[in-house]
């Protein structure tokens, strides 16, 4: 009987191992620690420069600090949903990435999928390891010194790990113009570019996917 129990335990243990291997893509979803995803990746967008301009007679930065964090998190969500977190790629549709766009802008942003997210390349990627993630933010304050516009310039870089082995270099740059809508900062204008290429350029490499927004 002891041997039988040992066997069942062994099966259970190995079964657990099998489950772990086949489900290892799963990581924390939206609503959990926003910076942490699978593969031990912890992505935190860094604010590298902060600028403030006001139309008021006298500048008061009272509301800038919280607005900075709100904009940082909104932009970080775009990069988590569009690049970093495989659980949010959703077969290359990246629904979470577009939450940060205003409805009219979102329609156009979806046409620029390959510029604003991993785009079609997501189908061949297992996971993404961020190497660079920083943003400059410049706020426009109104005559009451309330932040009403923000321009975020983002530089993002990562190593993409392919499903069939090997890695690619992912480079993205974006300028996003945001404004608060119902308490949430949303993007209403953007300019973005994304390049995914072999880490060491391969002579005569064939292109599998290209796109222009």
């Amino acid at each position, binding site marked *: 009987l002891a041997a039988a129990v040992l*066997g069942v335990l062994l099966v259970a243990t190995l079964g657990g191992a099998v489950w772990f291997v086949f489900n290892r893509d799963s990581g924390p979803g939206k609503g959990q620690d926003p910076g942490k995803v699978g593969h031990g990746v912890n992505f935190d967008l860094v604010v590298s420069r902060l600028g403030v301009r006001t139309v008021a007679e006298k500048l008061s930065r009272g509301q800038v600090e919280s607005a900075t964090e709100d904009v940082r998190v909104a932009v970080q969500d775009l990069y988590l949903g569009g690049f970093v977190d495989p659980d949010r790629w959703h077969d290359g549709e990246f629904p979470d990435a577009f939450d940060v766009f205003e409805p*009219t*802008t979102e329609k156009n942003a979806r046409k*620029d999928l390959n510029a604003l997210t991993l785009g079609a390349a997501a189908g061949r990627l297992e996971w993404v390891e961020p190497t660079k993630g920083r943003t400059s933010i410049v706020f426009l304050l109104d005559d009451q010194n309330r932040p009403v516009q923000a321009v975020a310039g983002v530089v993002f870089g990562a190593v*993409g790990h392919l*499903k069939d082995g090997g890695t690619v270099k992912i480079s993205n740059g974006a300028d996003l113009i945001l*404004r608060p809508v119902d308490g949430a900062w949303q993007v*209403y204008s953007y300019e973005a570019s994304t390049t995914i290429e072999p880490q060491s350029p391969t002579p005569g490499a064939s292109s599998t996917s*290209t796109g222009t927004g």
Partner: protein
Amino acid sequence: MGTRRILALSLAFAVLAGGAAVWRAVNPKPAHAAAEGSVLIQKAKGSYAPPASDRSPLVILAIGSDYRAGPGPCGCADSIHLITVNPEKQAATIIGFPRDSWVDIPGHGKNKITVALSPNLGDGGPDLLVRTVEGVTGIHIDYYLLTDFKGFSHLVDGVGGLDVDVPYAMNDPYSGAVFEAGRVHMKGGHVLAFARNRHGAPGGDLGRSENQGRVFLAALRKLHDNFLHDPASLVSWVAVGSRYLSTDLSLTELTRLALAAARVDEAAVDNIVIPAALGSVGAASVVFITAAAGPIFQDVKDDGILNR
């Protein structure tokens, strides 16, 4: 079934399952086998800016007042430009009106267009000037932008000066415009002198109005270049504009207008002065708008672009 048999089956299953797990771990297979083995290269660019307004074309009246401290100025319009913007085609037309244009001012009969801004006229001000220009052109004006001598100078200095294309050498003691021909970097006071120079400008008031259009082009060029180099510079432009311009545009609308203007290339902008002839009414020197102006107004009315 004996204990040994159960144990043997369990172990066999465990070995199979474990083997499968190990095999899966060291041989990850791609979900899309079709692309397997080829090099992954993907490059894409995309951009979007909302239109400056739901209206198309967007029509703005830019007004420069002669108001300044001290005696003399009547608070009249020294500079009057109708700017029609086509947001979709990122193109625009600047139409200058000489300040002495002899026109109908609603409720006041014929007079120089410049006085429509003057408080001396009773209901004079930007609204009356807007209605006056609408009456002359038949074009609905969406917004106005108004500044005075001091505000204009601060405006230019606030964006770091302008590189203005001076069409001919100027040496005018009245305005203080002393420039060589060519592109000249100017601070606010110099741009003001350039824009005010009437005595040294061919055609007098007509030439001055065209030069004022050149100031708009210089500003547009600088905004465009600034934005290309650093999109965040847009915030500085809007802040400076909001501080030194009087307008019926909200801050959001002003930002959207600046964003739209930043994307307009100077080459896509026509700068003209309405066809007019110098003349006089009594002892006053005036400018008569000629019949050739009608087709121009009709031309820009639909799409903001001069197609001639």
